[in-house]
């Protein structure tokens, strides 16, 4: 089967990207050095092609009440047009179908951005639920929209330089909100722990915009650095830190689940019936080596498993997210099985780094 390509595929190749198969997409993993790209975003800014992610518009009367039931977070928190909310979409048993961002545009229009690998499954689920509860709604995905994330302390200023008229529209945009600009959609969101924008743009216009950003000094960043940036920022990755077999309360996402309001939502009964036995914490490796997903962790309270691990360019140490018994406390030491050795790691509160700085105390 041939790999899917984004509208920026040729641009990546022209910029010297090393391309890899990323869940069926032909995507840039780096353009030279992943570590340099990581620092580039923490210290200045860089741009990512995230066009493989899918935009889904849900339109019609009663969208809000449908999403109130569909999502684990409560869309009633969204009162201002353009405001965004991070949420999980759950199965009846509480397992996570996907994590997503939902934007409130109008009372008859909410926009949802879902992960690439789960997009088709997500849309099928939404349509199945809408058929039962809100058949009047129109659920339409937009694979013709490309998405470019520009992230870093200088990201917004660079976008303003590259895109005439954008400054006036977005200078006062509060974090986690979005505004339309012609056929573009500019959101002050991201997946790096830095300030910046995620910009949706028609596929045809994407290569020109990408080239304009490059001319304004914005460096391209591969998906390799995107992963270490999000890990340092303590942001979950679907498929690694949670999936359909894990509920959000055991994946460090309790803050995104609204169990306080009276409203019912898919998965709520299962979450209330099954108090979490595990939690997600951070790890910093004290010995030499590199933490990786699926390594087994041994604590005095029982076994756990690393869900995401890598080398942190900001801390210059190996870090991880780990699912452990709920009794494990911050500051404790655990042993990690790496090949034929047991290495010592310290349990920490994450995020590890944000806004250019390490924020974990060792």
């Amino acid at each position: 089967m041939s790999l899917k390509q984004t509208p920026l595929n040729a641009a990546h190749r022209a910029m010297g990207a090393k391309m890899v198969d990323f869940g069926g997409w032909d995507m840039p993993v780096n353009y030279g050095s992943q570590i340099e790209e990581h620092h580039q975003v923490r210290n200045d800014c860089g741009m990512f092609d995230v066009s493989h992610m899918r935009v889904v518009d849900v339109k019609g009367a009663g969208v809000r009440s449908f999403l109130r039931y569909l999502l684990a977070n409560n869309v009633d928190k969204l009162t201002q047009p353009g405001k965004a909310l991070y949420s999980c979409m759950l199965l009846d048993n509480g397992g996570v179908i996907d994590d997503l961002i939902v934007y409130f545009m109008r009372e008859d229009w909410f926009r949802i951005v879902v992960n690439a690998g789960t997009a088709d499954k997500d849309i099928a689920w939404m349509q199945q639920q809408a058929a039962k509860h809100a058949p009047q709604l129109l659920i339409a995905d937009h694979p013709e929209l490309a998405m470019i994330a520009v992230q870093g302390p200088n990201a917004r200023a660079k976008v303003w330089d590259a895109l005439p008229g954008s400054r006036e529209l977005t200078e006062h945009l509060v974090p986690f909100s979005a505004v339309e600009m012609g056929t573009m959609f500019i959101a002050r969101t991201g997946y790096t722990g830095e300030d910046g924008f995620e910009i949706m743009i028609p596929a045809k216009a994407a290569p020109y915009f990408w080239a304009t950003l490059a001319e304004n000094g914005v460096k391209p960043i591969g998906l390799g650095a995107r992963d270490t940036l999000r890990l340092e920022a303590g942001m979950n990755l679907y498929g690694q830190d949670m999936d359909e077999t894990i509920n959000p309360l055991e994946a460090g996402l309790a803050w995104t689940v609204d169990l306080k309001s009276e409203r019912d939502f898919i998965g709520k009964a299962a979450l209330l019936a099954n108090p979490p036995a595990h939690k997600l914490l951070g790890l910093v490796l004290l010995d030499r080596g590199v933490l990786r997903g699926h390594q087994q962790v041994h604590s005095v309270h029982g076994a756990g498993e690393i869900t995401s691990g890598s080398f942190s360019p900001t801390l210059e140490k190996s870090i991880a997210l780990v699912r452990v018994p709920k009794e494990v406390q911050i500051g404790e030491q655990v042993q990690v099985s790496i090949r034929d050795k047991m290495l010592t790691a310290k349990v920490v509160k994450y995020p590890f780094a944000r806004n250019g700085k390490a924020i974990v105390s060792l």
Partner: protein
Amino acid sequence: MSNPANLKYTASHEWIKTESDGTISIGITQHAQELLGDMVFVESPMVGRKLKAKEECAVVESVKAAADVYAPVSGVVTAVNSELDSTPEAINADPYGAWMFRMKPDHPADVAALMDAKAYQAIVDSEAH
């Protein structure tokens, strides 16, 4: 970067250089470091360890992944390059200078029988398809 003609190679992407004292230095090839990306950790074998040909004996880890390094021939480990502990990125910068460990081969003829640069390049080329 081309693969130096004075070295020998394995299909598992190690290079082998015969030193003047008859020991061999082992590192990973340009192709291997490029596949792995930025190196962040190297684990070397203990000096004195006896190795069989194709035995796993060292590990290189990049930001992206871990990879085993194999003994190209049987022999005894005589030295390790401990500078790589603090500067694993030297493997990216200079793959054919950054040796990982040295061995005294049991049979020097085993080294002579390893692939030359041309045969190794053919393997790299075939992996690209």
